[in-house]
C-alpha cells in the first residue's frame, strides 16, 4: 500500500470511528431524554410510567387552582373532559396560566392519589405564548375524550331506546333520570 493510500485509509477510519462514537452517544442520550405525552384519560388507564418523567396535557379545571401560604406551591386539576388529574407545582407559573387554559406540564406520578385523583407532581408548566393557542396534543386529547364521550352517550341512548321498547313509558322515564 503506498503511503498516500495508507494516509487516506487512516483518515477515513479515524473519521468513521469518531462519527460512530458520536452517533452511539447521541442515540443513547436520545433514549434517556425522550418525554412522552399522555392525556389524563391515558394516565387514568395506567398507560403512563410511574416515577419517570412525562408530559401531561389538558385544560386547567375551573375553580381548581389553590395556592399555599408560601405563594409558590400551587394545586390545580388538569382535565381532558373525561378524566381529571390533580397537579402540584412549586415555582412560578407562566404568564398565560389560568383556569380554562390549555397547558402542558412535565413531571412524574408516584402512584399516590390526592382527593381521589391521581397525583401528578409537576417540575415545569408550559402555557403557550398566544392566548388563543391550544397545544395540538391537548386539542387532540380533548377531541378524543369528547368523541369517546359522545360514543358512550350514543351507546347509552341506543341501549335506552331498546329498553324503552320493552318497558313501559313510566319505567323508561325513570331510567332516563338515572342515566343522567
Amino acid at each position: 500500500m503506498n503511503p498516500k493510500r495508507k494516509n487516506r485509509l487512516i483518515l477515513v477510519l479515524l473519521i468513521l470511528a469518531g462519527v460512530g462514537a458520536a452517533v452511539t452517544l447521541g442515540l443513547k442520550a436520545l433514549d434517556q431524554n425522550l418525554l412522552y405525552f399522555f392525556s389524563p384519560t391515558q394516565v387514568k388507564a395506567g398507560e403512563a410510567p410511574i416515577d419517570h418523567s412525562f408530559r401531561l396535557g389538558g385544560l386547567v379545571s375551573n375553580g381548581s387552582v389553590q395556592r399555599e401560604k408560601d405563594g409558590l406551591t400551587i394545586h390545580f386539576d388538569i382535565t381532558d373532559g373525561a378524566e381529571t388529574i390533580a397537579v402540584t407545582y412549586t415555582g412560578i407559573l407562566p404568564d398565560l396560566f389560568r383556569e380554562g387554559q390549555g397547558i402542558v406540564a412535565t413531571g412524574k406520578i408516584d402512584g399516590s392519589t390526592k382527593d381521589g385523583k391521581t397525583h401528578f407532581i409537576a417540575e415545569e408548566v408550559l402555557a403557550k405564548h398566544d392566548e388563543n393557542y391550544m397545544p395540538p396534543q391537548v386539542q387532540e386529547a380533548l377531541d378524543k375524550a369528547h368523541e369517546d364521550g359522545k360514543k358512550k352517550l350514543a351507546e347509552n341512548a341506543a341501549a335506552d331506546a331498546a329498553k324503552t321498547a320493552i318497558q313501559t313509558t313510566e319505567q323508561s322515564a325513570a331510567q332516563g333520570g338515572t342515566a343522567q
Partner: protein
Amino acid sequence: MIPEIGNFSLIIALAVALFLATVPLYGAQKNNLQLMQFSRYAVVAQFFFVLVSFLALVYSFTIDDFSVRYIATNSNSALPMIYKISAVWGAHEGSFLLWLLILSIWSMAVAYFSKSLPISMTSRVLAVMGMLSIGFLLFIIFTSNPFERLFPAPMDGRDLNPLLQDPGLAIHPPMLYMGYVGFSVVFSITIAGLISGQLDSAWARWSRPWTVIAWVFLTLGIALGSWWAYYELGWGGWWFWDPVENASFMPWLIGTALLHSLIVTEKRGAFKSWTVLLSLIAFSLSLLGTFLVRSGVLVSVHAFASDPTRGSFILAFLVFVIGGSLMLYAIRGSSMSGGGHFNLFSKDTFMLLGNILLSVACAMVLLGTLYPLLDQMIDLGKLSVGEPYFNAVFVPIMLPALVIMSMAPLMRWKSDRFERVFKQMLIPLAVALSVGIALFFIEKGSVMISVSVGLAALIVSSVVMSFINRVKSKSVGSALKKIPLSFYGMNLAHIGVAVFIVGVTFTESMSLQKDLRMEQGDTISLGGYAFTFEGADSHQGPNYIAYEGAVSIIDPEGESIGVLTPQKRVYQVRGMPMTEAGIDAGLFRDLFVALAEQLENGAWSLRIYYKPFIRWIWLGCILMALGGFIAVMDKRYRLRVAK
C-alpha cells in the same frame, strides 16, 4: 387602493422572476451576450416591484388600514409607530414578504458586485436566485397574501402579539433572514458552478465573502434572538434548544463548516465535493428552518402561526430545491477533481476534522429536532426531546472541536511535523493548564468549569502565539500593518468563541436563582446583593396596563445600585399578560428581577437571578460577527468593481 398596488406589483414581480429564471440561463447556454445581460435588468426590476409591494404594506400599517386582514390581525391603532412598522414582519405573511425583499436585495448585491466575473457565471447565478424568487412569490401570492382584504373592515385591529412589541425583536427577523437568505447566494453560485462544470478555486474565492457575510448576519440574528428570549420570554434563560432555535442554529453550524472548507478549497483545491455539498446543505437547512417555524409541525414556543396548506407548499418547495440540487450534485459531482494531496498531520486534515465535528453536531441537533416528527409519523405516541439530550450530545462534540480550533491556525498546509506544532503549542498549553488548575481550586473541584475555561484560554493564547509568529524579528508596527485583514478577522472571531465559552460556562454553572414570596419591605440576599421589595403600583402604558414593582438593590460593598422596576403587563386588546423583567446589566454579572404573581395583601411572588458573565455570551457572538466582517473587508476579497 394602496394594498391593491402592493398586490399587483407582487404579480409583476412574479412575471419578472419567471423571465429572470429562464432567459439568462438560455443565454448562457447559447452564449448570447444580450440575453445574459438581461439578468441584470431583470434583477433591478424584480427588486423594484418587490420593494413597492413591501412599502405598500408598510404604508398600510402606518395608516391603520384594518380592511386588510393581515393588518387587522396584527396591528392596532394604539400600537406605537415603531411597532406598527415592525409588525409588518411580525407574523407569517409579512415575514415571507420580508424574506422575498431580502432575497431580491441579495440578488441586487450579486449583480452589482459581480462585474469582474464572467457574465455567463453571473447570469446563471442570478437565474438560480430568480427560481428561488418564483417559489417564494407563488407561496406568498397563493397561500399567504398579506394584502387580502377583510370585509367588513373591523373598527380596530387585534394588535401585535405583545411578545413581539420589543425593539430587540423588531430587528431580529431582518437580521436572521439576511443570514438565511444570504446562504441562497452561495447556493446559487454552487448550482451555477455545477451547471457549467466550473468549480475551481476561483469559484471558492468568489463564494467566500458571500458565505462570510451571510454567516455574520446569521450570527447576529441568532444572538439577538437569544438576548430577546433572555429578557422578554421572561425567565432568564438564553438558549432553550427549542425547535425554532435549532432551526436557525443548524444552518449556522453548517455555515461555519462551509466558510472553513471554502478556505481549503480556495487555497489547496481540496475537499471540493465536500464544500459543494455543504453549500447546498447550508441553504437547504435555512429552508428547512422556515418550514419548521412556519408550518407548525413542531410544538414550539415560537410557533406563532400554523396552517397545513402552507406547510405542504413549503414541503413541496423544499423537496424540489433540496432534491433538485442534490440530484444535480450526484450527476455533476463525480466530474470534480480531487485536488492536491496532503499528509495526515497537516492543516488540511485538521480543517477537515473540524468540519466533520461541526457537521456531526448539526446532524445530532437535526436528529433531536426532527425525532418527535418522525415518531409522530410512525405513530409511536407523542413525545418530545428534552434539553438534556442536546447538552449531552453537543458538549462532547464541541470540546475536541475547540482543541482543533486552537491548533489549526498554527499549523502548515499540506504537511507539518508534530514536534514543530507541539513547540508552538507549548506556551498556550501551559497557559491553559494553569488557568484550568487555578479554577479547579478556586471553584472547588468543578471539572467542567476548568476544562471549558481552560480551552478558552488555550484558544486565546494560541491566537496570541500566531501573532507573535507573524511579528517575529521585525518591528512590531510595520509587521502588524502587513498582516492581512482576514487574519485579524479570523483571530477576532476565534477570540469571540473563547469569550462565548467563558460566558456560557459561568452562566450555566454559577447562576443563582430564587423564587419567593415578598411583602413590601422584605429583603433577601442573593450572591452578596441585598434585594428589597418596595411594593408594586399600577402603571399605564400606551396599549397596556401594568403593575410596576420596585426592587432596590445594595451591592456587597454596601453601595446602592439603584431600583429595578419589573412590570407585569396586561395588553388590553388581547387581554394578554406579559412579564417585563427588571435587569441591571453588567460586564461581569446581571441582576434580574421579575414579578410573577400578585398574592394577597400587596405581596408578590418574585423571581430573582444573579447571572455571572451572561453578557459574555452575546459579546462573544458580536466579536465573531465583527471578525467575519473584518475578514470580508480584506483587500483580496474586495471584489474589483472598476477594472
